[in-house]
């Protein structure tokens, strides 16, 4: 340690090297994104996504990739120590490979730090989910609830904590059920243009308002169903990225935060999402953004539950507190509006591939920035994902094409 970087003029403090070291996404691949993928094991599904990602990036995983990150949780997989199965399909066997038991976006943040540290040049991040392999989904969710204060109540639907948040949010901001339905209808329709959106449809606000409740105040249209999917992304340092591609998508900043552990769910600030706010601020700081107003081209934000899209926009500073539903009314968040949100259709039309959810949002932003960066005044996207319920961890990434 203490030696100078060969590319730096002698006398320049070493401290500057990684600070200047930018991180880019140079390739991405996906597979699945269907309600069920019965023909493939989760390993084969991941392999398909990995092949596409490495082809996109133009790298050989056995030669060029320095480390591999896999994002998954044991109980989702039905295997204790599920990381046993992580290395082979992504080309990480006998290589530096590890698991993040968290959202794919948290895995992306790990890769970002690994590259920033200066020790790694190319890192692959993988996340996958096969909810269709789970027979007792409610039983699995039950295990996530505090065994003393919540689980014994035998709540009829373990996703109910989202309902508690939704009611608190609506009461605080004055957003109505119509606004929630507008979010769901818009996302379900936008998804019709997305090959990954299995749950898209020509749904109207009236259809939604007329549907029976799932968890008050939301209907089944407003709660994202589950999907089988795998996503792999390849991240690289600036030098490596320039070598590999002409149009890298830069990871300008990342942030992540846990508000309360699942052992203290009661202490959550209901109707808010402080973890999302903290993650956003962290990511903005890393990206050098003081205020996101006017600094962002589009956003892919959390919408597992319809109200979450509005709440996310507020917590991320993309809408004033209690303003998101008003901006929604004026079309600010529609394609072509002030800030297009969830043009991919969001998770409401793509579904929830468990831990791959955040990485999938990054994938959508990456593809859009790569193909259509010129559509935006500022070719920069905010990607935000929340892990819950019942956890209160969020992760945010700022991606840019410049």
């Amino acid at each position, binding site marked *: 340690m203490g030696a100078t970087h060969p590319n730096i003029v002698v006398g320049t403090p070493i401290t500057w090297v*990684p*600070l200047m070291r930018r991180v880019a996404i140079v390739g991405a691949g996906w597979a699945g994104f269907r309600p069920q993928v019965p023909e493939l094991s989760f390993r084969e599904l991941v392999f398909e996504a990995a092949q596409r990602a490495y082809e996109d990036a133009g790298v050989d995983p056995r030669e060029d990739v320095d480390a591999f990150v896999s994002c998954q949780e044991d109980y989702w997989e*039905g295997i204790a120590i599920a*990381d046993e199965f992580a290395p082979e399909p992504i080309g990480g066997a006998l290589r530096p490979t590890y*698991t993040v038991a968290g959202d794919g976006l948290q895995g992306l943040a790990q890769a970002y730090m690994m590259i*920033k540290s200066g020790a790694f040049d190319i890192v692959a991040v993988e996340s996958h989910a096969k909810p269709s392999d789970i027979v007792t989904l409610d039983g699995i969710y039950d295990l996530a609830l505090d065994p003393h204060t919540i689980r014994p109540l035998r709540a009829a639907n373990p996703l109910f904590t989202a309902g508690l948040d939704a009611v608190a949010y609506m009461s605080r901001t004055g957003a109505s059920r119509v606004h929630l339905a507008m979010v769901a209808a818009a996302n379900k329709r936008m998804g019709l243009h997305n090959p990954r959106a299995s749950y898209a449809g020509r749904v109207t606000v009236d259809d939604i308002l007329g549907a029976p409740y799932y968890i008050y105040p939301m209907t089944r249209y407003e709660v994202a169903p589950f999907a089988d999917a795998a996503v792999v992304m390849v991240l690289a340092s600036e030098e490596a990225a320039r070598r590999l591609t002409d149009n890298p998508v830069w990871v300008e900043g990342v942030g992540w935060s846990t508000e309360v552990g699942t052992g*203290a769910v009661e202490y959550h600030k209901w109707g808010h999402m402080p973890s999302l706010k903290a993650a956003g601020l962290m990511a903005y700081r890393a990206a050098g953004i003081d205020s996101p107003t006017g600094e962002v081209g589009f956003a892919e934000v959390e919408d597992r539950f319809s109200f979450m899209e509005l709440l996310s926009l507020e917590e991320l500073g993309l809408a004033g507190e209690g303003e998101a539903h008003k901006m929604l009314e004026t079309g600010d968040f529609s394609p072509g509006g002030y800030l297009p949100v969830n043009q991919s259709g969001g998770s409401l039309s793509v579904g929830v591939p468990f831990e791959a959810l955040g990485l999938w949002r990054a994938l959508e932003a990456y593809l859009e920035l790569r193909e259509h960066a010129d559509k935006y005044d500022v070719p920069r996207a905010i990607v935000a994902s929340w892990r819950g319920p019942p956890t209160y961890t969020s992760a945010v990434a700022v991606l840019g094409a410049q």
Partner: protein
Amino acid sequence: MRTNIFVKDRVAVVGAGLTLFRRRLQETPRELAWEAARQALESAGLTFDDIDCIVTGTAPDAFDGLHFNGEYIADAGGFGKPTVRVYVGGGTGVFVPVAAWWHAASGLCDTVLAVAEEKMSPAHPHPQGVFAYIWDPILERPLGPNLIWIFAMEMRRYMYKCGAAKETIAKVSVKNKRNALDHPAAQAAANITVEDVLNSELLVWPVNRLDISPVSDGAAAVILARENEARRITDSPVWVEGIGFTLDNTHWYNRELAFPRYVNYAARMAYKMAGIERPWKEIDVAEPYDPFDYKELHHIEGLMLARPCEAPKLLEEGWFDRSGELPTSPSGGLLGVGNPIAAAGLMKVAEIFWQLRYEAGPRQVKKPVHYGVAQAWGDLMQAGTVIVLGN
């Protein structure tokens, strides 16, 4: 992977703490993690406010019986902080500070709390049952395996390849349980003989009960800081000189079991980063992972602290005793202190930290120490995680 001349910031360990390791603790997993964090912070003269980021580690969720177990203990270092749980099975304990290293080395966090927790006692009728679920659900689980099988098979292969006798291997258990007598957190410290090991209950030949570490609850924590911060906190920081980790393929029965190449690759990565070329000479104290007694020898060879098949001979010569040439598991290891899986690995890192600060009290090794290595293993004979510390 590049060598550390490209790394911006040196990162140091500045504090470490433990809870008791016991079969049944009253604390919830979340409380255990917090207690360990508190011990670490107090020993470093810090408060929870001083922590920027948290890295947590727990091994299989199926022990604690908590889905998202990382989320359950996530606030143990204070609410509202960047928290992530990393995971490589049994190797998690050493991997937690490895991940914490890049949190600090990247410049994103100044101080990082690395905390690992495990509570094995909630699973009934016996925590051993949980291990059934780490096998391949289609090709291995239907054979009704017990996890000890895989260790026994590896141990048998190692004995066969290296001509190591059960009597020799048992000496690891004797040494570690004796070392643990000086550890206040220890669960299985004892003064036993080789005969005691050989005469204990035969579980899976060649494994007897005293060849194995016990079922434990417990937590451990260390605090890492960037150079400037570390120098402010303490005048004797212990530097993270090298990190290494490797995950081998899933099919352990498609590989030679006598030599742990996954540990070897991880060790090479860590030594390369630390600039260590002759680990058998340059490493002064080691904490190889020892859930089973033969595993310590196996891992010593993987860590290149002995040549393949040489460790049993060196053990006989007293090479690995606290007063020896290269003391291993001076803490008492998992065999002596206990094995709350993820926490046990981090306990090993903490022990190297105390050894390098000359703070290990009665456990302090006799020789002067400059470099120490801690290592953990995990999964189906797959994961090797290594951290090299220096003072």
